[in-house]
């Protein structure tokens, strides 16, 4: 009999359920993402959304995996980091199912899960990872039994910056793909601030400058929204690529993994591919299905943790909204 883990992702606006076999060969995932009618993502509204859909999504995932809830041997959930009220829903549901089914429970760090699902789906061993999403912008690699953070944003996450700019420009959520489309229409570059500090990045000045271009009297006269989108994207991605290259030269890793929601951007993929070629490193972008937030990555990381270090007791399953990925040890890679 094959063993299965059910993973619950609930750190931000996606309620995701994934079912993965202990060997990692079978995986199913269903996502339900909250999309605001207007404005940004309000934690209370996301919470409402997740509460309304959690059981339907679990049923749907089981149906798709052709399994019954009784076939589940392990429950994993996103314990950190994320929005407190949202994390709580995932933890609550996970504890509940684990107690009803009398199966073990494991809490997982969301950022670590992004790396682990990438290693599994791209069949990659020891990558330098650029993780870019609406909530995170992190360059990390495995060193001294942890996923060490070599570079990160000092303020906004790049996805958040792009979404916020899109909203200012009157585009609907999610803004990233729309900016990518607009940018592809333009070849005109407008100078914007480029902020790299060592291996860290800052996007707030860039965001403000791009926003000012929209409000300036020359807008739609000397330049268009396409031009601003192009300039914004080129600057932000050049910064990301530069710090990734620095970290690659410093760590001397031979593989680079691109993951998170922004990983879907073709222009960013092209830029990272370029530096990988220069440093003879293998480049993999995690397939979109697994790159964005999803339950399968939580399930898989839960399995890794369970097989190496066992379950979490109920009093160890308190949510940790602020936990960094470099604060925890990675027991399943210890023998390396």
């Amino acid at each position, binding site marked *: 009999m094959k063993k299965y883990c059910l993973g619950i992702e609930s750190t931000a606006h996606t309620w995701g359920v994934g079912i993965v076999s202990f060997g990692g060969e079978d995986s199913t995932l269903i996502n339900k993402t909250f999309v605001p009618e207007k404005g940004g993502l309000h934690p209370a509204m996301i919470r409402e959304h997740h509460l309304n859909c959690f059981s339907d999504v679990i049923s749907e995932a089981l149906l798709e995996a052709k399994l019954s809830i009784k076939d589940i041997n392990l429950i994993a959930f996103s314990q950190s980091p994320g929005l407190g009220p949202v994390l709580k829903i995932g933890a609550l549901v996970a504890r509940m199912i684990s107690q009803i089914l009398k199966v073990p429970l494991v809490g997982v760090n969301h950022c670590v899960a992004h790396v682990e699902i990438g290693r599994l789906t791209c069949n990659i061993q020891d990558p330098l990872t650029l993780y870019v999403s609406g909530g995170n912008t992190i360059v990390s690699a495995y060193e001294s039994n942890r996923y060490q953070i070599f570079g990160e944003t000092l303020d906004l996450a790049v996805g958040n910056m792009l979404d916020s700019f899109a909203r200012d420009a009157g585009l609907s959520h999610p803004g990233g793909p729309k900016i990518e489309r607009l940018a592809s229409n333009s070849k005109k570059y407008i100078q914007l601030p480029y902020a790299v500090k060592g291996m860290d990045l800052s996007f707030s000045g860039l965001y403000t400058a791009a926003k000012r271009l929209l409000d300036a009297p020359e807008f739609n006269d000397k330049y268009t929204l396409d031009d601003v989108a192009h300039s914004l994207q080129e600057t932000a991605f*050049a910064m990301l690529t*530069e710090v990734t290259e*620095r970290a690659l030269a410093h760590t001397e890793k031979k593989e680079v993994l691109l993951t998170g929601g922004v990983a879907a951007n073709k222009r960013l993929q092209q830029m990272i591919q370029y530096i990988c070629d220069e440093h003879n490193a293998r480049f993999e972008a995690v397939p979109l299905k697994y790159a964005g937030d999803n339950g399968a990555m939580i399930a898989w990381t839960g399995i890794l943790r369970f097989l190496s270090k066992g379950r979490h007791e109920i009093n160890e399953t308190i949510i940790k909204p602020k936990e960094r990925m470099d604060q925890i040890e990675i027991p399943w890679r210890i023998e390396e």
Partner: protein
Amino acid sequence: MNPDIYKEKLIHTGAEASLYLGKWFDKIVLFKHRIPKKYRLEEIDNKIRMERTLNEGRALIKVKNYGINVPQVYEIDSQNATIIMGYIEGRKLKNLIGILNLSKKEKIFKEIGIMVATLHKNGHIHGDITTSNLIVTNEGNIFLIDFGLHEYSDTVEDKSVDLHLFKRVLISSHGSNYKVCFNAFLESYRTEYEKFDLNESKSIIKNINAIETRGRYVKSEDRM
């Protein structure tokens, strides 16, 4: 082209620049060429390479006046993003940490502390102090290189950030040696900076913790 100035061979390709060994009249020199990065637009790339070349060249010349071991600059060619400088023969500190014994390590990091404090009291921020940017020569002299991200600043904040970045590199790349090395470094930094300004020395070091707790996803109980 001057026949007395030429590149001989490529010795290293870094993230930002290619390094060539060559001759500048009778001197053995290093050509540091910031290579064009094709992944970014030419408009962005040219500006960055030119700015950083000028910035680094000027900084190297300035900080040498304070007796800090840095390469001697012979020529700055910002149009071609190239600096011709003295060649420092030695090994990256990054590759030595694992080999050196405790007292050697402490001695080296104490010296680095004095170096960085000297930079800081004179208003220079290195911007990228890493163990890859510190070269130890066979005679045991320590050289600080790569001033591409150098800035002028007299603020406590910028100085603390400089120290914080160094601390982060030590943690992420030299986990088991971090405590010994960073403590030796910080102690001598403090002693050296105190001679210049006692209060500011205290503020800079105290502010390192403040920066850390400002970071993303730090547990609330760890916040100050």
